[in-house]
């Protein structure tokens, strides 16, 4: 699939909108909104004329980078940049999910480095703003503290993303065609197991006591064995949570009664 100039520009623009430093409702609309690989993949698919393929590539990327928040501003991978660029290149090359996953790693790391560098540049911005704050000049604070850095950083984001998508697309098809079957097969297996990283990262954050494993296994078996869909499964889970909460509530009230006696 070829990517035209116009398509590359549009994909890049969405990638800019999803930048953490683009004011689209802070991190709500951008980084955690259209920047999530599932949404990014769908948008790329829409622009390239194959929504479903884009969405499926994005969804798998999303599974790998499921829990990729920047805790204390330390980002290990800029998923927003990886999502748009890797999906576009993979679709240009022949819609290989494993290829998108492989590409997302260097792109994500590059994006994180860019973010780190921008945070360093903003230290100077912060000192300018000190001066304007002391003068009570909020107009200059807006101009030098928010608007100029945002423009510069997002132009940089455009300038680094666009060539990769537009020129990279021509190569990714060639690479895909050249790839021997051994590599394609191996990448298929890798693509299947990589989402385990995203799941394990979530489990690391969410499992705070051993009994939590029961819930995870409950969900796993409900889907793998019983084939319950995601919406019914969520409703069941909410029911389970409410029941457990009321049971715990009764236990605590029994405890407090006993302590009264």
């Amino acid at each position, binding site marked *: 699939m070829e990517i035209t100039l116009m398509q590359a520009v549009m994909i890049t623009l969405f990638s800019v909108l999803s930048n953490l430093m683009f004011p689209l409702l802070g991190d709500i609309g951008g980084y955690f909104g259209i920047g*999530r690989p599932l949404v990014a993949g769908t948008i790329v698919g829409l622009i390239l004329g194959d929504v479903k393929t884009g969405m499926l590539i994005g969804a798998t990327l999303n599974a790998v980078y499921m829990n990729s928040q920047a805790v204390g501003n330390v980002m290990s991978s800029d998923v927003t940049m990886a999502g748009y660029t890797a999906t576009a290149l993979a679709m240009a090359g022949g819609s290989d999910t494993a290829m998108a996953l492989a590409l997302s790693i260097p792109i994500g790391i590059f994006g994180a480095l860019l973010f780190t560098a921008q945070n360093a540049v903003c230290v100077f911005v912060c000192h300018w703003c000190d001066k304007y704050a002391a003068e009570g000049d909020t107009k200059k604070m807006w101009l030098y*503290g928010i608007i100029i850095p945002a423009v510069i950083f997002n132009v940089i984001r455009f300038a680094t993303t666009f060539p990769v998508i537009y020129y990279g697309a021509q190569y990714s098809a060639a690479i895909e065609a050249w790839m021997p079957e051994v590599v394609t097969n191996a990448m298929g297996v890798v693509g*299947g197991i990589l989402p385990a990283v995203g799941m394990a990262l979530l489990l690391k954050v969410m499992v705070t006591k051993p009994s939590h494993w029961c819930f995870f296994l409950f969900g*796993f078996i409900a889907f*793998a064995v019983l084939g319950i869909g995601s919406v019914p499964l969520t409703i069941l889970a909410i029911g389970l949570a409410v029941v457990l909460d009321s049971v715990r509530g009764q236990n605590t009230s029994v405890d407090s009664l006993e302590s009264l006696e």
Partner: protein
Amino acid sequence: MSERNYKLTDADLRKSWFTWIMFDCCSNNWERMQNIDWALAMAPTLRKLYQNDDKAFAERLTAHMEFFNTQPTVGCAILGIVNAMEEEKAAGKEIPSEAISSVKSSMMGPLAGIGDSVMNSLIEVILMSIAMTLAYQGNVFGPILYMITWVPISVGISWFLMKRGYELGVDSISVLNGEAMNRLVEGLTTVGLVVIGGLTATYVGLSTSLTINVVDADSTAVQDVLDSILPGLLPLGITLFCYWLLTKKKVSPMALILILFVVGTLLSVLGIC
């Protein structure tokens, strides 16, 4: 000297809230993190409180240029509290600047923790899991569903906390750290873990092509044997393996991705999968 009777209205608070929620990630810097946008979010309310006093306005604005970093959505509670404190201070109540600073610095850590876990590890993950399972079935409504739930829920929570923070003042700390909050987190964790279990079964794929030759019989596929024990045993195994590496071996996520590249390639080349 004109009488000071400036009461902040909903419109003033909205201006402050909107500046914060919109630009909170711009101009992040390693020295003082989100301080520039925080100061600018306080600017409209401070301007109203110190209408005729440019010197006091500049002084308070400068005070808000100090280090500040929290999770933006849940951090709105702090913005509400600090706006209430600034209002009282401007009305002549004895509130030292340090008191406002200490409220900010003592709350931003805990609220960042609550925000990261509740907003990004629970609410977002639950909504995203539903969307991703729908997407897996080829349903384009999945990503749309995510956007039309996640954005309004986040914006709604942030404004609710802003108002609550302003109305309850410092008392709202106890609400956010209280028993109700623990129950909410525990409940969301239960739901989150169940849907992650389903998501793991959907998205992690691994099956073996090995066969065993039983004596005097046809060869049996190992996968069939595994499926008869528990469907999805291998995906479950590889997920728990990753969890073990992350928690017990302290492997970084990026290194783990590379490890899986090697493992997957080996499994494929050796003809196991």
